[in-house]
């Protein structure tokens, strides 16, 4: 049992290191190669945990090899974009300017019922409401509704709302976030002054977010309410 326990720990940390090195694209599975690698890694990693006859190296070596292959292939595809056609499909337009491309449906082996289901999940009720539908490389369907079926935006209503700045966590769990303060171009002294001006004590706050315009949002600790 102790062998299984320790092997699980080792495989777990190796996987975390490898997935971290592969980066966010691996988690998002942007390409076919990413999906293949993720599937392989999950299968290989479980082998030495459940089968103690196998040496640990029979999992670690393949996982490291997959890391090398994945990182190398993604770098090569950046350096030689023409190679992309070999390993990944292109996005396919299924509905173009409101017109259904039946040939594309046949090539993708997608039925109209499946297409309708995807469109409904995007909040539309019929094909006639769709201006563009594109099947992306990662298998997800992007649906762009016709202007008459899309909710109006502020520009179309003649409104000019203020642009929202991005809020960053500047204080959380009784700790000032240096990274968050740096991102909004402020420091701890500024935050303390702002909290004082509002009559707030940082020790009683669970979390504070702020943007570069100096807007603050805070959550009080539950036990302080």
């Amino acid at each position, binding site marked *: 049992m102790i062998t299984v326990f320790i092997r699980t720990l080792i495989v777990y940390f190796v996987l975390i290191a490898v997935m971290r090195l592969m980066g966010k694209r691996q988690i998002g599975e942007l390409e076919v190669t990413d999906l293949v690698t993720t599937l392989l890694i999950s299968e290989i990693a479980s082998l030495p945990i459940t089968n*103690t006859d196998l040496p640990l190296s029979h999992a670690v070596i393949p996982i490291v090899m997959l890391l*090398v292959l994945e990182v190398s292939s993604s770098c090569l595809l950046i350096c030689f974009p023409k190679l992309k056609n070999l390993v990944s499909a292109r996005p396919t337009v299924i509905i173009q300017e409101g017109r259904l491309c039946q040939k594309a449906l046949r090539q993708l082996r997608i039925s109209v019922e499946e297409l309708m289901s995807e469109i409904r999940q995007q909040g539309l009720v019929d094909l006639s409401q769709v201006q563009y539908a594109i099947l992306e490389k990662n298998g997800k369907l992007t649906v762009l509704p016709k202007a008459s079926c899309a909710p109006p935006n502020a520009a179309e209503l003649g409104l000019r709302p203020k642009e929202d700045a991005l809020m960053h966590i500047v204080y959380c769990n009784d700790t000032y976030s240096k990274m968050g303060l740096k991102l909004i171009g402020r420091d701890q002294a500024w935050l303390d002054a702002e909290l004082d001006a509002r009559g707030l004590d940082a020790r009683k706050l669970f979390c504070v977010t702020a943007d570069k315009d100096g807007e603050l949002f805070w959550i009080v600790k539950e036990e302080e309410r």
Partner: protein
Amino acid sequence: MKVFWFSIALLLLLTVMIGINCAYINNVANRLKNDVEALSSVDCQAQADTLLEYWEAEEDWVGLSVGYGVVDRIKEQILLLRNAAMRGDEQGFASARTLLLDAVEDMRRLEQFSIGNLI
């Protein structure tokens, strides 16, 4: 690109380690094979003891890349060989010797580049 160069360095390191391991396993297999083939008769208890000592010193390192089943089999056959030598059991000795040689070849199998292994 840092990750790319790091992974290339990792690949080179892995290749070197696999090469060293391959040479080591083949070396151990050759030594075992030569020692076992040199045991021609059942009057070889001292040599059998030496063989066992050698294997016990190497089995942990071999076990890093060879499956437990094969490692265990080799030890088992060495012990059977030694016991047959102690008892003067010629048939048992011959059988254990053959099976031990087979187990040693099994140990070497994954460290050989051949079409048979790949498919």
